[in-house]
């Protein structure tokens, strides 16, 4: 044991861990971040998969990062250089048509006329509706869920603020919000549009990373949450970081360090130590113990409660509940180094301007639902939903002259396979993705210089994502807000005094937002203030 431990230990240097650490250090806490891997950043990583080809290893867009986090941590001073292309989404269809969603909704609406005059007219209104409803969710995301059992004065105050924002939606808006939140996203887009291609392109964001299909209740909430607090609207955000996502990790780490945070890589926490109902610190795999009155976990709640904490200290009931947390991973990643730019045969697919954003293979609601169906029975869909980006188009430095990198999120690839194991199926998954892409961009396979396949099992082993779930917990209606990750444990305080959760398993959930990290820091500091006062 060291002579005197830090004021706070953060387990895991993912983006949320770094955000929490930075806020704590800025408030004067001596904070240490412990990271199992060699580099900080967690899911924010840039991987060089062939000499000179640098590709987003996991997450590829960062447009959901809270502006308050960027501002508070002065990330621009620490090298953050975002790139927001004019195009948000390109959706090539199997029949050779395509549709493009632009940052400029009028432009999108104009182009939609080719599909349907009705949808062209409806699009700006729908975009406005998504923005309005999700702006309320941004308020919800920024607040700590109330203690339903014993609401405090500050809960009441937060409640009043939320109520004001709620009323700000207007009579129609409030009723509409309550109606659509639990709705299936297929219905949400179906009420607005008649074009199946458009429905699929938009609905896909409601099911991304989730073990749900577009007909599952609550997927509208996922879609709206994705647009909360950013400029996403109906089209969704598409923002890259110059140098790849790893450079955002670098900015966060630099901001944290400049506030006094110590980041230790290669330091795997194997146990949270406790005495009675209080944490006392952590133990590392090396045998080293670090004592600290505050332990903040950036890793998922299931892993935290089932493998780091002493089960006797938290009791069998909580262990049982933690064991029932749902995080069935259904996504994988295929990263490609390409010797040239692929050409999509669909309309406009040769214009690199349209390929600069996200490229969605989600041609319709049934396509997405059938992909989900396969995953229900533990199979990989033969027709996967893909979200691809070619970040080298906007950021040429990521690939050698003339070359490109392509980052492909693949869904549905269930972690829990009924047959076969992921290590044996890794190449099969890579082939499936290329086959799917080849049908839309013939010849892409011939451009492949190198290929990296990250299966759900890899996500668990290499990134510590239990069951390969990138969001640390399914974003279902049963694991949201005051019950994320569990009712009674949604306020960042977890099981033991001094133990906190700051990762995506906490409210407001997954995605590169920094939200759970920022909210957790606020609650930790409030507890400290309360204690010093008391």
């Amino acid at each position: 044991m060291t002579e005197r431990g830090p004021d706070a230990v953060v387990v895991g240097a993912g983006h949320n861990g770094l955000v929490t650490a930075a806020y704590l250090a800025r408030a004067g806490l001596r904070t240490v971040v412990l990271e199992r891997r060699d580099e900080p950043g967690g899911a924010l990583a840039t991987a060089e998969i062939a000499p000179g080809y640098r590709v987003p290893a996991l997450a590829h867009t960062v447009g959901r990062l809270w502006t308050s986090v960027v501002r508070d941590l002065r990330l621009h001073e620490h090298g953050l250089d975002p790139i927001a292309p004019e195009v948000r989404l390109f959706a090539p269809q199997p029949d050779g048509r395509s549709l493009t969603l632009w940052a400029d909704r009028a432009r999108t609406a104009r182009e939609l006329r080719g599909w349907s005059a009705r949808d062209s007219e409806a699009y700006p209104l729908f975009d406005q509706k998504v923005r309005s409803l999700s702006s309320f969710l941004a308020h919800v995301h920024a607040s700590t869920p109330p203690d339903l059992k014993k609401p405090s004065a500050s809960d009441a105050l937060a409640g009043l603020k939320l109520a004001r924002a709620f009323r700000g939606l207007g009579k129609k808006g409030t009723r509409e919000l309550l109606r659509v939140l639990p709705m299936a996203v297929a219905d949400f887009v179906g009420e607005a549009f008649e074009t199946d291609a458009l429905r699929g392109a938009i609905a896909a964001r409601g099911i991304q990373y989730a073990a749900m299909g577009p007909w599952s209740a609550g997927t509208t909430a996922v879609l709206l949450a994705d647009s909360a607090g950013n400029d996403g609207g109906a089209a969704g955000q598409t923002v890259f970081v110059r140098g790849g996502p790893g450079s955002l990790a670098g900015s966060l780490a630099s901001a944290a360090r400049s506030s006094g945070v110590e980041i230790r890589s290669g330091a795997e926490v194997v146990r949270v130590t406790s005495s009675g109902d209080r944490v006392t610190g952590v133990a590392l795999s090396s045998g080293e113990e670090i004592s600290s009155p505050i332990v903040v976990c950036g890793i998922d709640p299931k892993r935290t409660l089932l493998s780091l904490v002493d089960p006797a200290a938290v009791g069998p009931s909580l262990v049982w509940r933690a064991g029932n947390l749902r995080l069935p991973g259904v996504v994988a990643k295929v990263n490609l180094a390409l010797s040239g730019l692929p050409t999509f045969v669909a309309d406009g697919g040769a214009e690199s301007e349209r390929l600069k954003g996200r490229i969605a293979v989600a041609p319709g609601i049934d396509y997405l639902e059938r992909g989900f169906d396969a995953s229900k029975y533990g199979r990989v869909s033969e027709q996967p939903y893909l979200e691809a980006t070619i970040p080298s188009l906007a950021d040429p430095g990521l690939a050698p002259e003339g070359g490109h990198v392509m980052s492909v999120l693949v869904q549905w690839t269930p972690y829990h396979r009924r047959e076969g194991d992921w290590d044996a199926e890794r190449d099969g998954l890579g082939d499936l993705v290329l086959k799917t892409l080849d049908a839309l961009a013939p010849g892409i396979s011939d451009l492949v210089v190198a290929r990296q396949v990250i299966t759900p099992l890899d996500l668990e082993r290499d990134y510590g994502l239990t069951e390969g779930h990138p969001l640390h917990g399914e974003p279902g209606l049963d694991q949201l807000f005051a019950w994320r990750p569990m009712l009674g444990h949604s306020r960042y305080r977890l099981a033991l005094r001094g133990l906190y959760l700051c990762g995506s398993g906490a409210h407001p959930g997954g995605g590169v937002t920094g939200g759970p990290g920022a909210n957790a820091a606020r609650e930790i500091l409030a507890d400290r203030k309360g204690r010093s006062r008391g």
Partner: protein
Amino acid sequence: MTERYDAIVIGAGHNGLVAGAYLAGAGLKTIVLERRHIVGGAAVTEEVFPGFRFSVASYVVSLLRPEIIRDLELPRHGLEILPLDGTFTPLDDDYLWRVNDHWRTVRELRRWSRMDAEAYEEYGQLMFDMARFIKPILSIVPPDPARLDPRPWFPLARLARRFQKLPARHQATFIQLMTMSASDFLDQWFETDPLKATMAASGIIGTFQGIRSPGTAYVLLHHYMGEIDGAFRAWGIPKGGTGGVSHAIASAARAQGAEIRTEAPVAQILTKGRRAIGVTLDSGEEIAGGIVLSSLDVRRTMIGLLEPGTLDAEFEQEVRRYKFRGSSGKVNLALDGLPDFTCLPNAEDLEHLRGAVSFSPSVDYMERAYDDAKYGSFSARPYIDIVIPTLVDPSMAPPGKHVMSCFVQYAPYHLSNGRQWDDATREAFGDAVIETIAERAPNLEKLILHRQVLTPLDLEQTFGLTEGNIFQGELSLEQLFFSRPVPGWAQYRTPVKDLWLCGSATHPGGGLMGAPGRIAALQAIKAARAA
């Protein structure tokens, strides 16, 4: 106009009759108008084949509100509910059989899994407690979330305070019940596949959802609510079929002074200055009324019975947006004997057939049945809930013969690939059901004397259930409580003054409950007295 009433009720389904009884009981001169030749709506008994009487559509009493049974003195009017005992799930070479006798069920479960047998007990107690907590919601008038007046919120606030006093574990379970899928919820407790599938099945009855669809867990509670009302025997088969319930309510309504006219289809609701003043019948006859309550669904009432242009465009659009999506059908069989299940051959006593026989062998089976429907086909191998009423009420068929009621899911109202519900698809659907049962009870085919197949289209045409939805509209989360049937209009009122909705399209929804009819009538009476 010929005659004048204080209150006119459109439709003599169970909710319309309940509303009529309460209105008349409050001293209002009330008439209930029914299109068909019999009262009861979807709760009717008809002699479909000579000597064989069927509960044609609705076939069990689920949750008839005890306060209605009490207020209307229904037992005195002939209501008698015979108990259904247990659920028998036939499998390939085994079965899962749960009965009301708790210990016997636990012993049976032990055969499958010791852990499940243990959990069953704890689960049962928890569900019982949850049902007791949530039950008041069935009698609450949902407030309008957009209005600031705190008074309509009081009942909900009382519930919230009770929630705060619940133990932490119950609170968490309640949230899960309101948000999870039935299958995910049960996964926390059980590992036996047929057990999970059979229990979860109650969560999807009448909805266009699968047992893995979020929002289906809540209905698991209904079973336990029935148990709480056990003293009134709220679960079971009414003697004489479900029509028996309707007759009892009709008799109670008449006793209160309500007039009930059958074969009196309403053609239009008459309005004057956006206020309902009466109705016109198909015959041209006009009936004047102080208030009009419609037990028809919101679309049939507001679009079908009002003169176009009465409603503002926005409200009309919201009514049109209301989802029906019928997902079930019914097969009624007249049998020469009883089915013999291969998993329990030549059973000496017929105890396993005295309850429900559930075709729900696995979670995957249920989910695949749903998958078929999602893409516009009836399930090749559907979920079937079978009841043989003649085993508890032999009066339903000639001696030695039986009637068998098969509730079948899924059968989507909208078929894909240009197919329609017609004689050919109806028979194909019926064949799929018979084949499915015959796989596990091969003697069935020889026993069939007559069969009646009801598709969702038949349910619509016969009973006026739009798109064949048995609950007058999908019971999905976005169409419940605050938002049933239209956001902001969950208080049984409509934008047309003196026109009220009192059917299953209003809170708390469908099932042979009677709650919408009762609450709507009480609201209308209150408003009439205030005026």
